[in-house]
């Protein structure tokens, strides 16, 4: 395993991570489509293209509930 660069260092509250770890992103799928997710750091969302949903990440915790997700246009 490579040394863990902490991508949260720029965060004011260093104890609260902003993003899920890479290993977690590999494991997580969309609960609706079971398809892959991509992290959008600008909006702090996990995007499911298949389901057209954007799941929020709050305090580093992915909120994988369809009713909390934003519907993507198009």
């Amino acid at each position: 395993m490579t040394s863990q660069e902490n991508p949260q260092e720029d965060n004011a509250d260093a104890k609260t991570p902003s993003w899920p770890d890479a290993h977690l992103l590999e494991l997580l799928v969309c609960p609706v489509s079971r398809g892959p997710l991509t992290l959008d750091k600008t909006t702090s969302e996990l995007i499911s293209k298949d389901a057209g949903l954007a799941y929020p990440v709050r305090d580093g915790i992915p909120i994988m509930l369809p009713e909390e997700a934003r519907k993507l246009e198009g």
Partner: protein
Amino acid sequence: MEPSQNTTSFGFQTVNEEDKQGLVRGVFDAVADKYDIMNDLMSAGLHRLWKQRLVDSLHIRPHADGVLRLIDMAGGTGDIAFRACQRADKLSSQISVQVVDANEQMVGVGAKRGRDNGFGQVDFITGTAEALPVADQSADYVTIAFGIRNVTHRDRALAEAYRVLKPGGRFVCLEFSHMPLKLAQKFYDAYSFNVIPPMGKAITGDASAYQYLIESIRQFPKAEAFMEEVAAAGFARCQFQRLNGGIAALHSGWRI
């Protein structure tokens, strides 16, 4: 979506299926901060022993290559996750645990506990057991402790546990159960209904949340019937063990 006419239990009340999740969320929002203290008082500390029994029953083994993965469904405040990590540490085994719980507040409490106690190998995720946001065949263990009775569609949660397990993986479920000895059940009922809600009110300020908890325990199927449900989800070599005369039961099955 057309509202369904299907109903389910919420404690002793009958409610529409689509309402149960919200009602359960209300219960846990009300008690999230004090949830662990209340568990101690409600079970006279027994829940700690039962959770340890669950972790023992996983038979986490020394593991030379790779990382064991455990998904803990409805694992809110991290009790099972942290215990599993401690066990793996003792065996010099590497483990990665993902706690998936529908209640954001409970997850928040668990994530903070994890950070404060240095459990970096535990991830917290808000999500439901009925639609796990986890890839197929990714886990060596799936656990659920005192969560399955709050799930609206138990069959879906069991099917999800099966889906995310690798072949050879193990499912273990800890839940309140029923005492086969009628007199014991009678005393236990009297204690639960007369002592627990007032105690809950004194500590969390909310008696109705605890009224729900004990009612939902009575509504949950008997150990034999629940084992049938586990088997119906596809699990093999299903078995159960009563704990403390049946106050709780530990069910398990394998994906083969």
